[in-house]
């Protein structure tokens, strides 16, 4: 069986000032994903290697890393798909590195609640009256944007976020659209402060890399363009009919 080399980014701030790469040789296995290789390395070769993972099946969003320069979920990335002898593993781009492959995700976590990702209604019906019902069509309007697993691959792909970390970013804005498009929600105007701030949708230049790398086909780029049109039309209506404008 041919051997494969994993060139892994190491950063051990407790003992070393500078990051470096360490090469680990692994025996090629046809059915391994990159996460399997990393766990094998940690168990058999180097217990000091740190990285995040959890469900190992592409639903928790924990195991995001750069694999040969592309943001990937390592539990869904098969070693056999790489022709190169060496596979380079680095922490997710555009986030500060805490140690090895572990990044600081505080910025993302702090941004999530700012778009009020819950149903906003003028009046909440009494639960005894039963659930809010939706037709399949109504669900279809927002379903795609609800599939986000918060893996942050989109932030790693986005050059706007890479250049300016105050940008709200793809996943958070897609989440805003998920609620704006939900027929049970009435909070589009309430989300405007954050979504239509300069650091919100208007900073996006539609590179589209976020949608390309998304493992759950959320299409955050599409969500942001829809938000731009939607809020621009809200603005236009407010100019033409100020009395009819929302709060």
């Amino acid at each position: 069986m041919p051997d494969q080399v994993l060139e892994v980014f190491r950063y051990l701030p407790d003992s070393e000032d500078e990051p470096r790469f360490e090469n680990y040789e692994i025996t090629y296995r046809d059915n391994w994903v990159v996460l399997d290789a990393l766990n094998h390395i940690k168990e058999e070769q180097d217990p000091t290697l740190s990285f995040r993972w959890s469900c190992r099946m592409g639903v928790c969003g924990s195991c995001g890393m750069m694999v040969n320069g592309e943001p990937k979920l390592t539990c869904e990335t098969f070693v056999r798909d790489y022709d190169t002898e060496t596979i380079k593993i680095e922490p997710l781009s555009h986030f500060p590195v805490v140690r090895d492959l572990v990044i600081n995700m505080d910025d993302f976590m702090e941004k999530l609640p700012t778009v009020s990702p819950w149903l906003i209604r003028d009046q909440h019906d009494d639960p005894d009256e039963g659930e809010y019902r939706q037709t399949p069509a109504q669900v279809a309007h927002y379903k795609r944007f609800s599939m986000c697993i918060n893996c942050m691959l989109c932030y790693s792909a986005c050059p706007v976020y890479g250049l300016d970390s105050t940008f709200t970013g793809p996943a958070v804005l897609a989440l805003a659209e998920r609620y704006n498009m939900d027929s049970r929600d009435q909070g589009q105007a309430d989300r405007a402060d954050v979504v239509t701030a300069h650091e919100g949708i208007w900073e996006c230049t539609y590179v589209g890399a976020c949608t390309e790398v998304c493992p759950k086909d959320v299409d955050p780029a599409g969500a942001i363009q829809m938000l731009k049109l939607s809020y621009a039309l809200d603005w236009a209506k407010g100019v033409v009919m100020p009395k009819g404008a929302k709060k």
Partner: protein
Amino acid sequence: MAGVGVSPGPDRSAPLFWLLFAGGGTASAMLLPVMVFLTGIAVPAGWIGRDDLAGLLANPITRIILVGLVFLFLFHWAHRFRYALVDLGLRGLGSQAWLFYGLALAGTILAGLAALRL
């Protein structure tokens, strides 16, 4: 980090410039290729004579349309180009919104004056 360096509240001018960018982008997407073909190929090839072109440009309707297109094209350029500068790492220059939209407005006024033969 959220809250640090974030200007509070909606950007109230952004929708206007985005709509102008979108309008200009659509107009240029639909019309620019044929216009470039006309002045860049049809004229030198002799498919439009000197008098034909002069007559076309003298027509007031043509002139009004051209001014309208200058307006849309310039505001499309202004918005897209200043954000391109930001993406190229030149945030300082790209942030000078007044410069780019000001140039677009100046160009539009210039076109308007020319159209009115002033």
